[in-house]
């Protein structure tokens, strides 16, 4: 089989997986609370568990950290994680072996969060990106010293400031920042996770980080640190 054909087959499988992960959450037929019995033998279920243990369970820590970052508290994170894995197990026969299981689980979690948990939380409002650009246009023209900036802005910030800044981002931006900076995934992996082109991942990441920078600058300023003289024209 040629490389192109292989790739195209993989693409088709990935698309099937995307569709499957969407319907796991969106279609009531796949509701985990639906107690209708599955028409499957015990052996098949045991084999499914074996495959699930090998393919899905190793990604639990990554998923939990992501759940914690998007929900903002450990209890909701644990609930979301449990629900994601139980749902994933139930519909694991829909997962195409050999494709990216981590991305499949991630999409189930993301959709679950949006459909179930996000409803109870207020999503951060849209940011005026022009305002953020103005902030960067006003950064002074002479070269900033890295050590100086670390001391003047970053070392004065609390861990809570970092969390608040991250939570102030809209979901699309927050997701790519978490996956890239905190989980260390490549752009290609992130693109696979969030189902968008790599260029979009880079663009969201760039903008997300800019929003964070402005937030952190404002926090440092509020805390009374003389950041303006060190950073602004």
């Amino acid at each position: 089989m040629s490389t192109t054909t292989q790739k195209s087959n993989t693409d088709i499988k990935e698309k099937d997986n995307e569709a499957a992960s969407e319907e796991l959450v969106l279609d009531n037929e796949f509701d985990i609370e639906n107690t209708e019995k599955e028409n499957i033998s015990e052996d098949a279920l045991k084999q499914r568990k074996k495959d699930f243990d090998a393919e899905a369970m190793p990604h639990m820590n990554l998923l939990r950290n992501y759940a914690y970052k998007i929900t903002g508290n450990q209890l909701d994170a644990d609930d979301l994680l449990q629900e994601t894995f139980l749902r994933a197990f139930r519909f694991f026969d829909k997962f195409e072996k050999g494709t990216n299981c981590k991305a499949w689980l991630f999409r189930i979690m993301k959709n679950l969060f949006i459909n179930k948990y996000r409803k109870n939380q207020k999503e951060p409002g849209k940011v005026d990106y022009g305002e953020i650009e103005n902030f960067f246009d006003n950064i002074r023209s002479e070269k900033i010293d890295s050590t100086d900036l670390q001391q003047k802005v970053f070392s004065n910030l609390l861990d809570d400031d970092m969390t608040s800044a991250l939570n102030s981002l809209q979901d699309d931006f927050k997701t790519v920042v978490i996956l890239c900076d905190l989980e260390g995934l490549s752009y290609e992996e992130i693109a696979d996770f969030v189902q968008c082109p790599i260029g979009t991942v880079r663009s969201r990441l760039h903008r997300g980080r800019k929003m964070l920078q402005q937030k952190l600058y404002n926090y440092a300023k509020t805390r009374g640190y003389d950041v303006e003289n060190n950073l602004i024209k």
Partner: protein
Amino acid sequence: MSDLIPNNPEKDSMPNSGNNDLNFELITAYIDNELDATQKDAVKKMIDNDSDYHNRYIFEKLTKENFIKRSNRIETPIYVYQNIGKGIEDYISANSGSGAQINPSLLTQQANLQKLNLRRYLSLGSVGFVVLIVAAFFLNNYLKTNPEHLENDFVSVSRNIFDKVESGEVKLQYKSDVAKTLGDSMDKFLDFKVFIPDVKDAILVGGVCNEIYGEKFAHIIHKKGNILIYTLQANKSELLGNKDKVILNDKFKEYVKAGKNWFPCMKDKNKTVVIWFKDNIICSTVAAMESQDIATTLTNYK
């Protein structure tokens, strides 16, 4: 520079997406090591020669580094693994066999076996019944001398609820990591003033108020890393005076009356229970820790 940039389909929908912004995105990709060698060289030159580029690069690089450095990664607690495992097992046992076809001859064999076994079961059942009576007698005596194992014993209640919290059966009524906010919310329900203990290096997760055998209780939950620290809290004078409702072991009552403020109870499957009090509240704290470690983490119980 712009010829280095691949197409970005989202650009058109973004506000103020000028060419400069696209150029600056290369700084992001440079920081994340997502450029090929040619692009990398080009961006490096820009950073070295253009102070605006340089400043943006420094600011963004420090932002990423600080986020990585200061972000707490949390390991998945064991009880979450257990819950997921149990959920899967339950699902398997609830669904298994539904699709399997049973050979009718096997059913006949099964019926014959059942008949043959019936007599054996009856004789074994009589022996079992006698054993049960004897066991009940000894158990009754044991419970009289070890009241901490009675269902309505303060220590037993706290152990049982800890298990339920750990397995996720208990949902929090009040979620707050601020002691005052949580205390104010819980006080509205209780007939005593709740005391939220300060637990060193742990986060306050929240609490629940309820009535057990007609008596009001506060349940407070902290987490220290993956360790769950659960505190059951009651009105001290009421608990000491109780003869029915939820009771406290006579020996422990004596300790409390004598002013002994901290005594570990029997350790059970890696979890320890300690009793302590403050003003007019009495607490039973349960955690998978040594009693001395619980004493060290509860910093303001005295």
